[in-house]
């Protein structure tokens, strides 16, 4: 079984700092593998089983090698790194690059993404990629069972769960409840740097280099205006103070 899994090297939202004017300090910000992509890699490893190949695909800056190595440490076999600055790319452009890279790597049984990235969380790349590759697609998968040439996938929607049958090869986006991502051991982390990673340029992939039709005009810190009143003391005191405060807000009975 051959599995392609896409990962994003994303700025760590918890570590991101803003300046006095509320502008984010994006240059040099701490980055990591997008949170839910770990679930994508885990599911790819599970579907690969004992034999087969998991190939990691990543569009990102040179520093994205950290994220790629983490996926390799988890157990992926090799990686293809499309080296460019993705901040100027929209989802259409990113999915075009990924589709081109996946297509030139031969046939895959599964193409896996997580439902969305932890930085921008648009969730657009997975269905765009499936559409470009012409593969059957099930989004927001929380359980995948493969039997021969078919897969039964449970997908989680807002108010319902669907069981979808799809032929294999297919593409999937997974939600975090699908599995518990493994932690690589020290030995696996050391071995990861020996696994092959191929660097690609957007130009070599052709259509991906085109100009994006949507863009970010600006970003600023969201004002979170909260009172931040904190009560300390005995349980009885603080409980009474909290109830009193909520009563004064008109939420609880006076």
């Amino acid at each position, binding site marked *: 079984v051959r599995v392609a899994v896409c990962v994003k090297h994303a700025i760590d939202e918890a570590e991101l700092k803003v300046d006095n004017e509320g502008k984010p300090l994006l240059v040099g910000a701490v980055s990591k593998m997008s949170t839910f992509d770990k679930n994508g890699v885990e599911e790819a490893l599970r579907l690969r089983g004992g034999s087969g190949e998991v190939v990691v695909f990543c569009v990102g800056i040179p520093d994205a090698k950290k994220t790629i190595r983490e996926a390799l440490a988890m157990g992926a076999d090799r990686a293809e790194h499309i080296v460019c600055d993705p901040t100027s790319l929209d989802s259409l452009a990113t999915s075009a690059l990924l589709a081109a890279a996946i297509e030139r790597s031969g046939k895959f049984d599964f193409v896996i993404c997580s439902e969305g990235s932890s930085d921008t969380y648009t*969730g657009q790349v997975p269905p765009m990629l499936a*559409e470009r590759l012409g593969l059957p697609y099930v989004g927001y998968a929380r359980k995948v069972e493969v039997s021969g040439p078919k897969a039964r996938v449970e997908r989680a929607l807002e108010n319902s769960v669907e069981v979808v049958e799809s032929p294999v090869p297919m593409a999937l986006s997974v939600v975090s*409840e699908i599995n518990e991502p493994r932690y690589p051991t020290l030995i696996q982390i050391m071995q990861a740097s020996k696994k092959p990673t191929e660097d690609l340029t957007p130009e070599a992939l052709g259509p991906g280099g085109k100009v994006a039709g949507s863009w970010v005009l600006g970003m600023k*810190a969201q004002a979170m205006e*909260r009172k931040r009143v904190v*009560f300390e003391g005995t349980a*009885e005191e603080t*409980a009474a103070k909290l109830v009193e405060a*909520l009563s004064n807000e008109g939420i609880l009975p006076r």
Partner: protein
Amino acid sequence: MSTRVWAFSDPPEVANEVAAAANGLVNGAGGGFTMICLDKESPTLAGQEKLVLKGKGPLLGSPEAEAEALARAARQEHPDVILVGATRNGREVASRLAVKLGRPCLSEIFGVALVEGSLRGKRNAFAGKLLAEVAAQLPCIATLKVGIYPLLQPSDSKARVFDVGEVPSLTRVIERREKGSGTVDLRSSKLIVSAGRGVKKKEDLSLIEELARLLGGAVGCSRPLSSDLGWLPEEHHIGLTGVTVHPDLYLAVGISGQLQHVAGIKDSKVIAAINTDKSAPIFQASDYGVVGDLYSVLPPMIKEIRQRRGQ
């Protein structure tokens, strides 16, 4: 120059919210908006004009088929903007449409406006830490953040039928289970008591449930309780990848307040928190906080509320 806007949603429950945003767009710019109905005309949907997309088989329920149907109609009718409700199915439909039509696609935007041949909007980024202003060149597609716009009233309107012919679907839904009937929809709850990792055992959730019941509210939770521990069904999960809520009171009990969780509660009117760790980020996101153990704070809190009610 008039701008043609289409409004669409799967599920149709939030379509009239998309209609309200579409209506706002065209009111400013001249032009009209068209509500897209699938399979049959729906009298509960808003819109002066409705376009009914009909295929050989049913379209609604398969994002793949829906996107193909919309693409076929759009190639004939040339709408400038296709607004789609940012539900899980809606995101897939919009993304596929973007590829099929070669149009840019904005994601989960609000505060939409037409400016100099482009569609503009705002969106949350970095788990709500930042607010981004985004734009796409017309013609374009966008998914619209739902749960924040008022609904546009349904209207009696003329419906045109567009025959999309046979639309293939590579996958097949073999079962559809509605989630937890009888559970409260958190999106419309006015009061939510939410549990996090501070709760030590599943049985102890009864304390949270008791308080929620007393206040006539609903029970929510942070991601670990639903996704990792499975103590509550996934529809109780509030946060970036779960439900976004905007109650009058959000009471976070034993929740540390990771960004992903706070992203789902930002729009609450009042946020209160109970947590043992004084430095927990939830206190930064709260109006009122109690530093204390939920096991010792909740019982006197319940007693206090009962007393005030004369119970």
